[in-house]
């Protein structure tokens, strides 16, 4: 039974005992004892693409900013334009250093007028909270609270995510648009934040329920029971990583870090230099733009020859010259291709450019392909409903 015990040095979510008792394979992820897989990474990945999967993402952090100056605070702290958000809406954004590189990428939620929730990464929690306090230090009219430990955050993802969650709440989920959220009773928990967000490239929801162990494990079990008829699987961080990689979503410490700027990472569309607030990192990014853009860029690679490019493997020009590095690489279980994200000089960033990835000393050919590698199919009309109308 010793595998039910977490090493003391690692932090755990309220579902740790549930994961361990269900024989999930556990790993140290950024100081957290987290499930990397349950039944198998590929099965879990396919469940999310074709049916539905549920992830414990309670290790993610949450910072709440409240008060009459909270919008001003958010605008100074984050690169996207929060003045465009309506109550109940969220968007992707990032906290930057003065030089335009990343403190972290975040999802900002506008909970109410003068009330914002920033969802941050697990591995950067303390750093992020300190950074927020430092940037906003001395600003009046804004109250910063680290609410990370208040919530158990579950991600229910896949084409059957809505049908699964709908069984557990009276809130009509259909009208909630992508990157919008609402509140409602879920599994008997009142005022639960229900957001149509995720990190898999599928339709799905993230719910924030009270983090006490009894509630957390009850909600986890109810989600699994509700999804049973759709073939739901509990999923680990392994599938979460391959799902986000197929969808070409950035992961902190890989595609984004304190040595990579916004334009290099192709995230300029979320960076509003002209929003009218001199946010941290703006001047440096303006200078990059004025100088004609970045010298290197993040590209998607598909391996042409046999071999798998992995995180940290060198990228070579066809003449053997080292030109860059893979930031994330793996087989794509759904698209059934070996894919990678990598930084290369802009001269090598055009689509169809052939390069090589050095796989344990051997150059293996790859080419630059469009990202995301996987895009979910456009919603088609339900055939059953169509029949009803016709007959």
């Amino acid at each position, binding site marked *: 039974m010793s595998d039910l015990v977490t090493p003391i040095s690692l932090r755990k979510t309220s579902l740790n005992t549930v994961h361990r008792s269900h024989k999930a394979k556990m790993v140290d992820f950024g100081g957290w004892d987290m499930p*990397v897989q349950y039944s198998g*990474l590929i099965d879990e990945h396919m469940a999310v693409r074709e049916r539905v999967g549920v992830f414990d993402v309670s290790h993610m952090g949450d910072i709440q900013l409240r008060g009459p100056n909270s919008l001003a605070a958010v605008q100074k702290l984050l690169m996207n334009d929060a003045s465009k958000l309506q109550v109940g809406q969220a968007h992707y954004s990032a906290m930057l250093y003065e030089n335009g590189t990343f403190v972290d990428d975040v999802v900002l939620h506008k909970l109410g007028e003068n009330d914002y929730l920033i969802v941050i990464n697990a591995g950067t929690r303390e750093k992020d909270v300190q950074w927020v306090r430092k940037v906003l230090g001395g600003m009046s009219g804004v109250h910063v609270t680290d609410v990370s430990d208040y919530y158990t955050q579950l991600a229910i993802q896949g084409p059957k995510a809505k049908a699964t969650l709908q069984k557990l709440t009276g809130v009509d989920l259909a009208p909630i648009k992508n990157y919008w959220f609402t509140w409602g009773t879920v599994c008997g928990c009142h005022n639960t934040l229900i957001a149509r967000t995720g990190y898999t490239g599928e339709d799905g929801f993230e719910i924030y329920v009270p983090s006490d162990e009894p509630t957390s494990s009850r909600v986890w079990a109810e989600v699994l029971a509700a999804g049973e008829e759709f073939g739901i699987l509990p999923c680990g961080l392994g599938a979460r990583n391959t799902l986000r990689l197929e969808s070409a979503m950035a992961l902190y410490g890989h595609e984004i870090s304190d040595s990579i700027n916004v334009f290099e990472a192709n995230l300029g569309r979320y960076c509003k230099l002209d929003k009218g607030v001199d946010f941290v990192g703006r001047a440096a990014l303006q200078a990059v733009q004025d100088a004609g853009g970045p010298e290197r860029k993040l590209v998607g690679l598909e391996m042409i020859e046999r071999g798998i490019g992995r995180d940290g493997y060198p990228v070579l020009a066809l003449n053997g010259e080292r030109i860059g590095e893979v930031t994330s690489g793996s087989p794509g*279980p759904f698209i059934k291709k070996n894919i990678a994200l990598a930084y290369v000089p802009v001269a090598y960033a055009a689509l169809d450019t052939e390069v090589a990835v050095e796989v344990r000393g051997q150059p293996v050919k790859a080419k630059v392909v469009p990202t995301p590698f996987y895009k979910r199919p456009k919603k088609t009309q339900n055939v059953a409903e169509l029949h009803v109308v016709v007959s």
Partner: protein
Amino acid sequence: MAYPEKYMYTKEHEWLLVDGENGTVGITDYAQSSLGDIVFVELPKVGQQIEAGSTFGSVESVKAVSDLYAPVTGVVTEINESLNAKPETINEAANDTWIIKVTLTNTDEVNGLLSAADYEKFVSEETGH
């Protein structure tokens, strides 16, 4: 029985079946389970010289790459080419899925390998349960 008694084992999680000077090599059930879904096996060439304790290929799962270590010194006589198309066979039946066959140079080397019971003990010590 997760670890058949007819095999000898390495601390790098290969199994070896010895018949005279002929050896057959695979990876253990513990190895496949730790790796998860295997998607790629890098095989040596027939005729290649391998040396006990050195790498002769690799096994890749979705998440990780793991080198294959030669349990003994010898020459590769056969490679399991069906693994190119169906590497997941190792997950399905690690004990029954061979990777290479070798002619042993020095059969005494086998004495330095672990028995099934010793390997099982080694694994339980390594994983702490």
